[in-house]
């Protein structure tokens, strides 16, 4: 008798958990806020400014999804997560969407039961050395001391790279990027290696950035993207197509400046479908017709977000590189909106 009660309770708990997981969209709408996981602070990608407003490239994704779903780009509860707490926060349902420069890997996608909804930044591991060292290629780094964050994929990539090229190195283990900066400047290591975007941001903060060079070799693939839980494909679709809408908007030349005008109807049916003047794409997602229009108006299209937060006119000064549209030789390629 007692056992049945316990089993029954477990079943009900399981059912309610399943129901809650399956209707993230309804939960978000009922709550009126999107719980979006971001980093506790990464230059250019997510950090609160002097007024306490979150700014950054990953933050832009959160705001776009909130705008698409709730109609208000500010209806976001930003949940700061560290590298250690991010996956449990998502798996336990504390956050609806994780936009925290997370590398899309096989095990995270399959084993941890998450669904990456796309890639918003193609990164890769690079090297930075002082110019005075006179090194122009990573293959000349034989015998160098290398500052490297422990417990990350960068550590493994580094070992692979040096082994493949049959050269030796001496690792200097460090905990965080912030710790690496002074160590590298004091000369505790000849080389600093991490994701290329991180290197650029670190170098931008130096007193004399021109005295340091980032070597041309990129030794790993780090596709960073937002992710959601397994088991709620409808919610995953919303996140995926919001990101795609930002990317497609840049491709079709839809910007936050001209979107109001284009939303009145254009000759291009693809733009019309994207902005909801033609077809029923929003309805298929369970949203209204203007979802993509709001997402783009939240912070601009992909290119605008990039330029504003990490582009060449910011102190970080990243060039588009792999993150250009496919029409311009990059990897950004949104599936068609039809």
């Amino acid at each position: 008798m007692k056992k049945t009660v316990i089993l029954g309770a477990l079943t009900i708990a399981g059912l309610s958990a399943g129901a809650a997981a399956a209707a993230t969209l309804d939960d978000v709408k009922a709550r009126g806020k999107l719980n979006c996981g971001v980093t506790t602070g990464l230059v250019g990608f997510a950090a609160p400014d002097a007024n306490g407003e979150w700014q950054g490239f990953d933050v832009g994704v959160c705001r776009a999804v909130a705008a698409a779903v709730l109609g208000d780009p500010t209806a976001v509860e930003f949940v700061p997560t560290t590298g250690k707490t991010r996956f449990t926060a998502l798996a336990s349902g504390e956050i609806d969407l994780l936009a925290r420069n997370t590398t899309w890997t096989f095990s995270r996608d399959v084993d941890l039961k998450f669904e990456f909804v796309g890639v918003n930044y193609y990164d890769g591991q690079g090297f930075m050395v002082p110019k005075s060292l006179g090194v122009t290629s990573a293959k000349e780094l034989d015998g160098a001391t290398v500052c490297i964050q422990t417990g990350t994929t960068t550590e493994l990539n580094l070992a692979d790279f040096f082994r493949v090229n049959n050269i030796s190195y001496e690792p200097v283990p460090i905990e965080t990027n912030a710790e690496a900066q002074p160590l590298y400047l004091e000369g505790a290591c000849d080389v600093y290696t991490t994701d290329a975007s991180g290197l650029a941001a670190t170098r931008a903060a130096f007193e004399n950035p021109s005295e340091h060079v980032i070597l041309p070799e990129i030794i790993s693939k780090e596709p960073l993207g937002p992710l959601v839980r397994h088991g709620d494909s409808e919610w995953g679709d919303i996140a995926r197509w919001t990101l795609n809408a930002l990317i497609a908007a840049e491709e079709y030349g839809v910007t936050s400046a001209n979107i109001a005008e284009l939303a009145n109807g254009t000759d291009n049916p693809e733009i019309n479908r994207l902005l909801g003047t033609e077809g029923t794409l929003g309805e298929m997602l369970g949203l209204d017709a203007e979802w993509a229009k709001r997402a783009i108006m939240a912070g601009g299209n992909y290119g605008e977000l990039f330029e504003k937060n990490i582009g060449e006119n910011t102190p970080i000064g990243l060039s588009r590189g792999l993150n250009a549209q496919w029409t311009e030789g990059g990897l950004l390629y949104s599936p068609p909106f039809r």
Partner: protein
Amino acid sequence: MSKSDIAFVRREMLPEKAPPATAAGPIKWVRDNLFPGPINTVMTLLAIYFIYQIVSGAMPWFLNGVWTTSSLAECREVLQGATGGCFSVLTERWNQLLFGFQYPSEQYWRPTLAFVLLFVAVAPVLFVALPRKLLIFTGLYPFIAFWLIWGGTLLVPLVALIGLIVGYVVFLRFETKGFATAALTGVVAVVLVWWLGGFVSAAASETLALTPVPSRDMGGFMLNMILGTVCVSLSLPFGILLALGRQSDMPIIKWICVIFIEFIRGVPLITLLFVANVVLAYFLPPGSNFDLILRVIIMITMFASAYIAEVIRGGLAALPRGQYEAADSLGLDYAQSMRLIILPQALKISIPGIVNVSVGLFKDTTLVSVISMFDLVGMIRGPILAATEWNGVYWELWGFAVVLFFVVCYGISQYSQWLERQLQRDHR
């Protein structure tokens, strides 16, 4: 016996002469303390050299400090390569360092007022000479502080307070029927009042309401102070109970206490914090959001009370057996003998240990930055160093954190030394 013709009788005292310059005043002090011998002379000169090096290195950094720019790049422009601190980060972000980046800035007066009132509330506990009536304010303080910092209607802390008072009155009413019965009925009364009061405060949520601020928005040094104050003051009573429980003759109580203490002491605090943040989220039903600060407070309090329990157990063990027997021979029951004879002495012995644990605990509150809470250290490591304007400022920020923590911890330690002198009852 020959008699001299020359008679000299001094009629007045000679005025006192100043001692030789080498035997008094600063010169003597310098000779005695700085240059008493060759070895000490060398040490003194070396020390002076090092102090000079440090001061001459640090002074330009302080004196050239830039206080008014709005980014590190501008700082460097102003300094033009000269040595100087970029203290602008403190003038621009001081509010974030103290209150976190989400606390509404027009409400800063509330935590500040709570902080000032903290001294008023703590004073009568710390200084016996103050009028005892101030203790009433101390009792009210937790409720006032909660209302000030978290906001919302005044009814919530008021109901909590009334519940406790009712519980205490019920306890007194039933005290003659035995301690356990009285305590149990008291608890039932408290829960009943809180349950009923919950409806009232929910219905009238606008009564005397301040703008509510959710726990997620707390941060900066304020968060360290909240965690430190709450956890230290909660862990003292729990620690005492655990220490007494561990010495109890009743096996179940004894073993519960022993297992609790040994388990908690055998686990690092950071692990408990991860449990609070990560694991509890799995156990709780989905959608329920159990306040993160509350979870962290519970974990830190558990951790600290286990340590304080051991410190107090040391104090209890140090008391001579005669004290226990004296209490028994007076016919006091367990509660009375503990309250009147044993604990006052045991706690006095334990003061250094308790202060030690408290100071350590206060500094340990910075560990919450690892579970993505923005305390002072979390604020520096996360948002401020990740801002494009301030990425690369280290010494100024960490120096500021050092100063804040040093002031608090040194203050606590000085007070405890003063207290020990006050309580000196030894026969020496």
